[in-house]
Each structure stands twice: as C-alpha cells, then as structure tokens.
C-alpha cells in the first residue's frame, strides 16, 4: 500500500502545481482580453495549425503564438516547456510510419502541428484564470448547469484529494504486514469505496451550505474587447491563407 501512496503523492504533487501556476498573477494585455474572445482566438490558432501540413504555415502560427507570448511578457521558456512533452511523444509515435514510408517531412510536420496547437492552448491557459475560462464559456452560451458543475469540481478537487489521502494513510498506518499487488488492489478499492461514500455525505453538507448561502454561482469580470488581439489574429489568418 505504501507504493500506492508514494506514487500517488509524487504524481499528484506535480499535477497540483498546475493549479497554482494556473493562477498566474502577472497582468499583461492578454490577461485583460475578454476570455471568450481569447478562447475563440485560441481555437482559430489551433484550427490554422492543424489544417495544414505545410511547414511554412505551421511555422507562421508557431511564430505568431510565441511573438504574442513574448510581446505580452509571458515566459516563453515556460510556454515551450509545457508544450514540448506531447510534441516529443508525437514525434516518437509517428517515427515508425515515417521511416516505413520514407517521409521525413511528415516526421517533422506532424509533431510541429501538435506543438503549435498545444502552444496555442497553453498560451490561453497561462493567461486565463479558471474562473475566467468558465465566464467565457458562459458567454459562449454553454449551459449554466454544466459550468456550475465544472466550477464545483475545480473547487473541491484538492479538498477531496486530501480526504482520499487521509483514508489511505490511515489504512497504511494500521497495516501490520507487507502486502502483495492483489492485496493492494483489494485494500485500495475498499478505501476508494469508503472515500466515495464520504463524498456523497460531503456533497449533502455542501448542498445544505450552498442552500443557506444562496445557490447562485456568479462569474463576473471586466474585460477588454480585445480589439488589437482580434486584429492580430485576423492579420495572421490572412497571412496564413496567402502563404
């Protein structure tokens, strides 16, 4: 069981860092652009990245994303680091088929497309708080009920994980002998079962608390229309089409 806890804590620590990185405190022009405009702009960047296999077009999008990041004061290194892992993975995935078909261009363009699209998404993530993303989705007419559920999921994930870890640590503290993989699976499943039962109880408490405080979740914000951002993307899209 200790392996389960060790591996989980190690993995979750790096995972939860993103919760805090995400709450990026620095304010730049992009942070102030209306989240729904930014989301649409990001979609435009991604569509332009994945609609072509021409290297020059993909490089244009990649350059546009990184120039935008640089211009608005973001750490380009962080952006590249967060985008590179899956691009490298994609390179390895298409390596066999590229070798088989003797197509070096595909070996370069496929991961480059992935890198450009992930960079666009990461640029959006690094400049938009989660509450702002939900506000943007709401403005884009995504059903309110879905958004409220996503918001509550986000708010309670760390708290729920702490409860789960407490259950696992308590069980581990009571263990007297070494366990096999099968026993870990059995014990872990029981712990998860208990955890889910407690989650139902916690949900009831939270519902009562929400009823007492008022159930409406409001997402407000004051943002720029993002006129220059729209101009920039329009310019890049036009350039892309002309290439």
């Amino acid at each position, binding site marked *: 069981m200790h392996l*389960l806890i060790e*591996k*989980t804590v190690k*993995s979750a620590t790096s*995972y939860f860092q*993103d*919760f805090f990185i995400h709450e990026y405190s620095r*304010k*730049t*022009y992009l942070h*102030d652009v209306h989240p729904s405009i930014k989301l649409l702009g*990001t979609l435009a960047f*991604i569509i332009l*990245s*994945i*609609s*072509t*296999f021409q290297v020059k077009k993909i490089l244009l999008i990649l350059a546009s994303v990184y*120039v935008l990041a640089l*211009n*608005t004061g973001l750490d380009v290194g962080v952006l590249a680091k967060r985008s590179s892992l899956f691009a490298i993975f994609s390179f390895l995935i*298409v390596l066999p*088929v590229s070798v088989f078909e003797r197509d070096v261009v*595909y070996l370069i363009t496929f991961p480059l*497309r*992935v890198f*450009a699209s992930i960079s666009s*998404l990461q640029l959006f*993530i690094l400049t938009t708080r989660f509450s702002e993303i939900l506000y943007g989705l709401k403005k884009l007419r995504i*059903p309110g*009920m*879905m958004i409220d*559920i*996503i918001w*509550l*999921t*986000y*708010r309670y*994930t760390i708290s*729920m994980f702490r409860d*789960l870890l407490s259950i696992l640590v308590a069980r581990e503290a009571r263990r007297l002998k070494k366990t096999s993989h099968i026993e870990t*699976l059995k014990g*872990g*499943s029981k712990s*998860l*079962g208990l*955890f*889910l039962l407690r*989650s139902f109880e916690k*949900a009831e408490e*939270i*519902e009562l608390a929400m009823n007492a405080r008022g159930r409406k979740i409001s997402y407000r914000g004051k943002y720029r229309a993002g006129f220059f951002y729209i*101009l*920039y993307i*329009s*310019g*890049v899209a036009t*350039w892309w*089409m*002309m290439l």
Partner: protein
Amino acid sequence: MHIPDGYLDLSIAAVMWVLTALVIGLSLKKVAESKNLNVPLLGVISAAIFAAQMLNWPIPGGTSAHFVGGALAGILLGPYAGSIAMASVVAIQAFLYGDGGLIALGANLWNMAVVNVFVGWYIYRLLERYSKFGAAFVAGWLGITTAAIFVGIEAGLSASFRYPAFVAISAMGVWHGVLGLIEGFITAGIVSYIHSSRPDLEETSNAVISKVPVAFIGVMILLSPVFAYLAEIVGYSEPLENVAEEIGLAEKQSYTGIFPDYTIPGVNEYIGTLISGAVGVVIFLSLAFMRQHASAD
C-alpha cells in the same frame, strides 16, 4: 486516452463535437428533471472521481496505472449524471492542464464521458442480476477498452494520422484491454463495498431511466464510427487550405516569399500591395498596442 489537437481531421473532430453535444445536452436535460441529483452532488462527486484518478496503482514490473472511473460514474450516478460528471473532469483536464486538445475535446468527451460511461452502465445493468462484483468488473474493463478502441477508430480514420485504422485500433485496444483489467478490478471492489455498506445509493443510479433515450444513445455509439468515416470521405482534410485555394489566395508555385514584391499573386498589383501592406501593419500595430495597453501592474 486524451487525444491532443493535430491527431484528428477537422471533419471527424466536428462530427464528434456534434454527437457529444447531443448526448451531453440530453444528459443535462435528464439530470435537470431528476429529483435525486443536483449540481452540488454532481460537482463534488466529479471532484471525487478526479481525485481518484490521481491514484497511481503499482503494477508488476515497477510501472503504474491510473484509474479512469467512467464505468464507475455510470454505475454510481446513472448514465446521464455519470456522463456529466466525467465531462466535467475531462473539461477541467483540457482547460487547466492542456490534457487533450480543444478541437479534439468533442472526441475526448465522446470517448471518456459517453462511450466509457454508457457502455459500462449497459454492461453492468445486463450482468448485475448474476453477480454485482462480476458485472462491475466486466463493466469497468470493457468500458475503458471500448473507449480506447474508439480513440483508435477516430485517429485511424483521420488522414492526418498516417497509421492504418487497424493498427491504431489494435494498439489502443490491446494495451487498454490489458490495463483495463485493473480498472475492472478497482471498479468491482468499489461497487461491492458501496453495495454492502450503502445499498440505498443504487436507487440514485437506477431512478427514472426510460429505455428509449438510452437505446438511442446506444445506437449513436454504435454508429459513431460510421459517421466519422462518412465525415472523413466528405471532408478530407484541409478545409481551410481548400477555402484559400477556392478564393484564389493560395498559390501553387514554389515559395517566393510571403508577399513577393509586396503583391499577392492573382490579385491586381496595386490592391495586392495595399492588402499586403495592411496585413503587415495590422500585425505589428496590434502587437505594439497590446504592449502599450498592458496593465501597469
């Protein structure tokens, strides 16, 4: 399991978005009508599933696997609420961590929040009369395996992803078929524990589920590869480039610079110069203004 942008063709991604929107929309409607389910419950249970996904189960050989929980969500909450809970988790993973793409989010939701949940739930309902443990095991195992096979189908049908469909499907299906055994075992353990401790909770998942909509969703799941195949035939593969060609903005000659001599081939020389100048000015002015309009803090 999370497909990033770039693996699927736009036409297939669009079809998956439409199918997902239909099922999630129907699920939201059903949950809104339900008396047993509410927003806080779904939010907290989704958070619990998200937290449970972080458990890294050690498996022989020194590696580890993590739990997905789609079938479990269906069994515990019912297929509609289960699909919404999983959709919430998958959406957060995309918007917060960049796990999976935005254009591919429709396909990711389809695989993990629809196929995994509904297939798991169908199997559980079919087999639970024989053994709840066995039914939950098969549901967890086949739910995740089917979802992985759908990932293989979507990627395999996409012309952007050069591997033949059978290679992509086999790679995803076989690997997850093996790892899915762990998913099945955990799902079965949890369901057995909850069944013995709080059998009343099963009422939540079994309440008011009429057969017609779930049968309709089942047919949609079965037919979704056909829709994806048709989308690929109709829509391959680079629609924006096709548009550029149709409106005369694309050129077939070898690369001669972005705007050769500040003109646009095929467009009147003066207008071309005007447009190319305007595009450059727009890009650089917008960058400059963004810089200038950044908040002081």
